[in-house]
Structure formats: structure tokens, C-alpha cells
């Protein structure tokens, strides 16, 4: 499935999310199951399948990680869990350190440290997103090595996402 085609846009990392969201809403207006309550069973089924496809496409396009994965998949690079390229040793090291720091902050119930880590991780994921945007902007010129590099960036972004999810769970825990 090409989520970009489903939403009527050309594949790119830089997308006008507000415009795509509007398209998604228009498509939902046409396809949502609520519109087909009075319809025949087969019509309901096919509308449902389309609505699911449109929602899936929107889920992919609006999320930088899934958007990047999908762009790589369109260029023949297998993506998803288990297909990440090996991370650079220094990044692995950074990951381990951050994890450790987070669990220490949690033990110490140090909310300020947790907030600091969140801000750092957010800044780092913005940097990685910028790098992805530049990498994909090179378009057809990208070599397999370039693509592998981008796939690595996606892995980093996923790490920061998990870290941020954990941070917000810990924030809730500390606030409760």
C-alpha cells in the first residue's frame, strides 16, 4: 500500500500535515461506517475496508517514523521491527546511558531530572527529523548507502519515541 497515493499526495518526508488532515477528513466524510448504516452489507464492507485504508494511511503519514519507514519501503528498503540496521556503537552507548539515567531519576523521584531528559530527547528527535528531511529531499539521487543511513536515523527516532513514552509514564507516576 502507498499511503501517500491513498491520500492523493506525492511521497515525500516534508508534508503539509494540515492539508493532508483536511483530505483525511474529506475522505472520512465519504467513507465512515456511520454513512453506510443504511447501506447493503457488501457496500458497508467495501466502505469499511476503504475507511480503514484511509485511516491507516493517515496514521502513517502523520507520524514521522512511520512516514520515513514507508518512504524507505517505497524505495525497496525493508523496514519495521527486526529490520533495523545495526546501530552505531556510540548511539547504543548513548541509549544505555539515557536509560540508566532515567531509571535513576525515577528511583530518586527526581521530577526535574526527568523533565530535563524529556527536553533533551525532544530536541534530539527534532534534529534527527531534520536530518531525515534533508536526506529524503535528495530524492532519486540517494544511493543504497544513503538509504541505509536514513534507516539508521529512523531507528534513532524510534528510540527517542520510546524514551519519551516512558518519560511521560514516569511523569504520571511521580505526579500521582
Amino acid at each position, binding site marked *: 500500500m502507498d499511503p501517500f497515493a491513498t491520500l492523493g499526495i506525492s511521497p515525500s518526508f516534508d508534508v503539509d500535515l494540515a492539508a493532508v488532515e483536511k*483530505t483525511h477528513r474529506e*475522505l*472520512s466524510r465519504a467513507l465512515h461506517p456511520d*454513512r453506510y448504516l*443504511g447501506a*447493503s*452489507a457488501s*457496500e458497508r464492507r467495501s466502505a469499511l475496508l476503504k475507511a*480503514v485504508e484511509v485511516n491507516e494511511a493517515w496514521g502513517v503519514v502523520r507520524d514521522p517514523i512511520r512516514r520515513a519507514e514507508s518512504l524507505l519501503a517505497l524505495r525497496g528498503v525493508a523496514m519495521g521491527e527486526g529490520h533495523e540496521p545495526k546501530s552505531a556503537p556510540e548511539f547504543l552507548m548513548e541509549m544505555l546511558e539515557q536509560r540508566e539515567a532515567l531509571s535513576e531519576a525515577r528511583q530518586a523521584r527526581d521530577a526535574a531530572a526527568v523533565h530535563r531528559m524529556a527536553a533533551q530527547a525532544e530536541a534530539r528527535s527534532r534534529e534527527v527529523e531534520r536530518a531525515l528531511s534533508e536526506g529524503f529531499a535528495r530524492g532519486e539521487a540517494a544511493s543504497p548507502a544513503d538509504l541505509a543511513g536514513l534507516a539508521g536515523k529512523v531507528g534513532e527516532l524510534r528510540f527517542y519515541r520510546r524514551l519519551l513514552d516512558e518519560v511521560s509514564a514516569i511523569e504520571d507516576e511521580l505526579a500521582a
Partner: protein
Amino acid sequence: MALFEIFDPKAPPHPIGIDLGTTNSLVAYVKNERPVAVADCDLETLVPSVVAYLPNGDVVVGRRAVRLAAEHPRDTIVSAKRFMGRGSDDPETRRLGPYEFAEPAAGEANTVRFKVAGSRVVTPVEVSAEILRALKAQAEDALRNVGGAVVTVPAYFDDAQRQATKDAARLAGLEVLRLLNEPTAAALAYGLEKRTNGTFAVYDLGGGTFDVTILLLDDGVFQVRSTGGDSQLGGDDMDRALARELLAALGFDEQRQTPQLIRLVLDEARRAKHALTTLDEVEAEVPGQKRVKITRARFEELIRPLLERTGLACRRALKDAGHKPADIDGVILVGGATRVPAVRRYVAELFGKEPLADIDPDQVVALGAAVQADLLAGQGRTDDVLLLDVIPLSLGIEVGGGVVDKVLPRNSTTPCVARATYTTQEDKQTGFEIHVVQGEREMVADNRSLARFTLKGIPPMPAGMARLEVALHVDADGLLSVHAKELTTAIEQTVTVKPSYGLDDATVEKMLLDALDHGEEDLAVRRLAEGRVDASRIVAAARKGLQADGDLLEAGERARIEAACDALDEASRGDEPSRIRARIDALDDATKAFAARRMNRAIARAIEGKSLDRVEKSVEHAKGVEEAHAR
């Protein structure tokens, strides 16, 4: 003296909206394009969500049941909604009331079951069904012919709780058009009457649940941007906080508290809370005890931690939606507990603006549900309004080491499907355990378990060779089903799992039969009625399609479709459900190709509309460039 209108037995039944609340429930319908709550004979619209089971086998619902609560605390189920979809071993379950629980027998589902009136055992689903049945009867007294229902649930309800709610409605003999999130219903009531666009927060502090929802209203599309809340927080907790204070002031330690006393003190606490809405000071009086003075300031101090918990959830929901409090164009208040002045002040402070409260906060959800029911039953302006819901919590699957693989991220728009592929860990492994969990945490243990089952009969293969595809489907009601199949073998296996606490169709059917006096007979009557309702809807939709997109018809197609419509009309005048079903299928066949063409057109239009916009913008942009050059 009431005035009567002539009832038309041939008119379509009235769709209804039901707010099945923790403390109170009510039913509403749309009359002359405006939603109104249905009142009972005493002109009361709120039905307390209380069910009393008497020793003589009688079941009493509503205000009469409330009066029985003090005398029969264990047999009168209050706030049954709190127990919906809960396990009996859940530590919260025991905290929630003075009830006696039946232990599940070996091999039985781990569902909460109350022991009432001596030996009777009822589930929260059955208790809720009694409330829904009472609401349905109240609607039938007013409207005679009641059609499909939209039933609301807290946005934060998980899959098991939604399933339980739907089961209760079916058990009450209601045709459920849609489960609707309560805050979305409230926004619908406001949005439709005020025709406002913008980003709204719905702050719903009910008796037993707190929900906050960030909603975007744009061109008639209501989109839930994020939801948050706490399904264990509400006005009841204010009563409890106040009751603890009263018990301490009266000198009761825990050993001397009987269920009867707790019930009396809770009732008095609730009265004091209501009085403090307008008074600065009240005297609480528990029968047979000394009076206790409570000031509003003390009450506000007691509930402050509860308000702060709502604030945390609000900030979280704002963050999830990518908004700051200042971005919010309006805050809608829902739930009786928002009448407490301290709550209004807190909300105004939190969002930096006075909340909207012009619609009765107790009724607004049911009124919105009625509007939605009317739309879905095809009597309202279907083309104007659409609700897009999201799943409130991520859904994932357990992978090695107790880690969760998030398959559907939270805030995905429903309906949605996500697939993930796994493989076997051991040689010749023939079974594969699939464990679906809900939540944001990385480890399975920190999330909620939703469904666990084993896909069996995989042919023996070396480890890593089998390819198991697990698909999670979430429908527009937010209900989950899980399908699993092994992809490398010729035999495709599909297993559909009902969530742990829901009832399967056979159980519901059996319970329905048990509940009806003339089981089979009544069921046949219902099938016929349902068949007729479906038939009239489908024929109307088909004819509307012919009118709207007649240019897409191929030669002879119109005649075939019209003939099928007429045949179905004829069948629904008869009284054979099977004949109606057969002709529904025939009409379905006749319209298949036409429907596909219509859908493609709708999709093309949806995309085109937006790309046209973009083309115009780029033309404008190009013009700007030329002008700049010309200068």
C-alpha cells in the same frame, strides 16, 4: 391535561440517545429537530442508576431503588458502571462498595458477580441492562415506537468496558446504532446548536468517571484529537471524601462502620455537597447522630486533590493533541459534579477561560446522543455531521521477554486495522500464544491485559519458519477483535477473540430468552421488526443513491435495482423474516457494482476538492513571484 398527537403505526420508530451514567441515566430523542430528554410521570428526566433486588424476586430501578438502598445495602447495586468489564480479582473491585461477590467457579470467566437477595447472582452487565430496560420503557411510554439507540460510554472506557456496555444494551432489547463517547456527544449537543468551529476541551466530571477530550470541530466534522481521564474519579469520590470526614467527626472508627451506616453517611455527604453549591456552610445530620458543621472552604480543601488529578489528565490530553491551554476556544462542562463552584473555578483557571455551561450538564450527553441517533437513523442532516473517534490507548502484542510490540498507537482514528507478523521460537512449535495488551508502557506487566489465546495446529516446522500474522481490528464503536493466521501453510486459520469480559453472542441470546416471558415467540417478533427496519433503511439508501448518482448507472441497471427495491418493499409488508432477509441480499447483489462506482466517485471528489485548493494556492504563489519579478 396532556394533549395527544395521533400515533402513526407506519411511521418509522423514534431513534433514541441514552446516557448510561454512573450515578444517573437518562434517555432523549429529537422532537421537531431539537433534542429533548424524556420525562417520567413525575416530570423527572434523571433515572438514578440504582437497581435493587428484593427477596421476593422483584427488581426495582431508579428513585424507588435509591430509597431501598439504606435498608438493603448489599442488594441495592449503586454505580454498577464502575464494575463494567472488571475482573473479580481486581483489587479496585473490593474497594467499590458494600457488596457481596460470588467467587467464579473453576473454568468460569473472571467477571464481577454480585450476590443479591439471598441466592441470586447478577453481573454488572445484567444490572446495567435493568437500567437500560427502564429507560427503554420510559421512552416507549412517551413515544410508543422506539427504534435504534445510541448509547454513550466514557471516552476512557477500554475495550472490555465498551463490549460490556453493548452487551447490556442488547440484553435490554435495544438495537445499538453506535456507542458514542460521552464528551463527543456533549460537543455534538453544543456544536449543532451553536454552529461553532474551533478546538474544544470537554471536561466531564460525572459521578464516577472523569474524562477530558480535546475535540476539533471543522466543517461539520467532529474529530477527537486526544482523550484522557481517570475511570476511577468523580463526584462519588467527593461524597466519599466528605463521608470520611463525617465519620471521623462522629467518632466512628473502621470497626464500628456497618454497610448501613456507610450508606447513610454517604447519602448525607451527597446532600451536603449539593447544599454547598449555594451555601457557605451546612449542618450535616446523620439519623441518630449529632450534627456536624461543614464549611464550603473545608469541602473545597477536601476535594482539592481530586481536582488536581483532573488537572493532570487535562494537561496530558492537551499535550497529546499538541495544544497549549491558550489554543482552546472553549471548554464544555459535563456531569453533575461540575455544578460545584470550586470545579468551575478550577477549570477556568486551568484553561484560562470561563467554561461553557448553558446546557444542563446532566442532560447534555443524552441530548447529544439523541442528535447522533437521529442522524444515524437517517432522519437528520447526515451530510453535515460526522464524528471521527480515536482509540484512547495503544494496543500491542506481547513479544519475547515480556516486552510490548505496539501495533496500533493511541489516538489512531477508528475504524482501523493493524497487522504484525511474528514467528515461532522453537523447532516443531505447533501452538503460538498471542497476548493483546492495552497501554503505553513498554513492559507487559505495566499494561492492561485484554485478550490471550493460543493459535493451535501450526504444522511442525523449524524455529523461525512459521509466519504468524496477527491483525487487530477496532471498529467505529472502539470494539476490538483479534484475528490470527499462519501464512506459510495452505490452510489459513482465523481466530476471532472476544475480549475477556464481554459475552459471546450465544450467551446474550440465551440471557435474552431467559429474560423474556415468551422467549422464542418474542424473538421471532423482534426478528421481523428488525428485518423491517433494516429493509426500509436499505431501500431508502438505494433510492437515494439512484437519485444522487443516476449518471453512473449502466443500461438496465436502474430497472434491476428498482425491481429489487419493490420486491423488498413487498416482502417487508409480509411477516416472514427469512423472506425479507433473502430480498435484502438480492437488493445487495443488484446494487453492488453501482455502489462501488459511487464510492470511487466519492473518494475522487474528496481528494480532488483538496488538490484543487492546492492548485489554486500554487497559482497564487506563482503570480506573486511574477509580480515580484516585474517590480
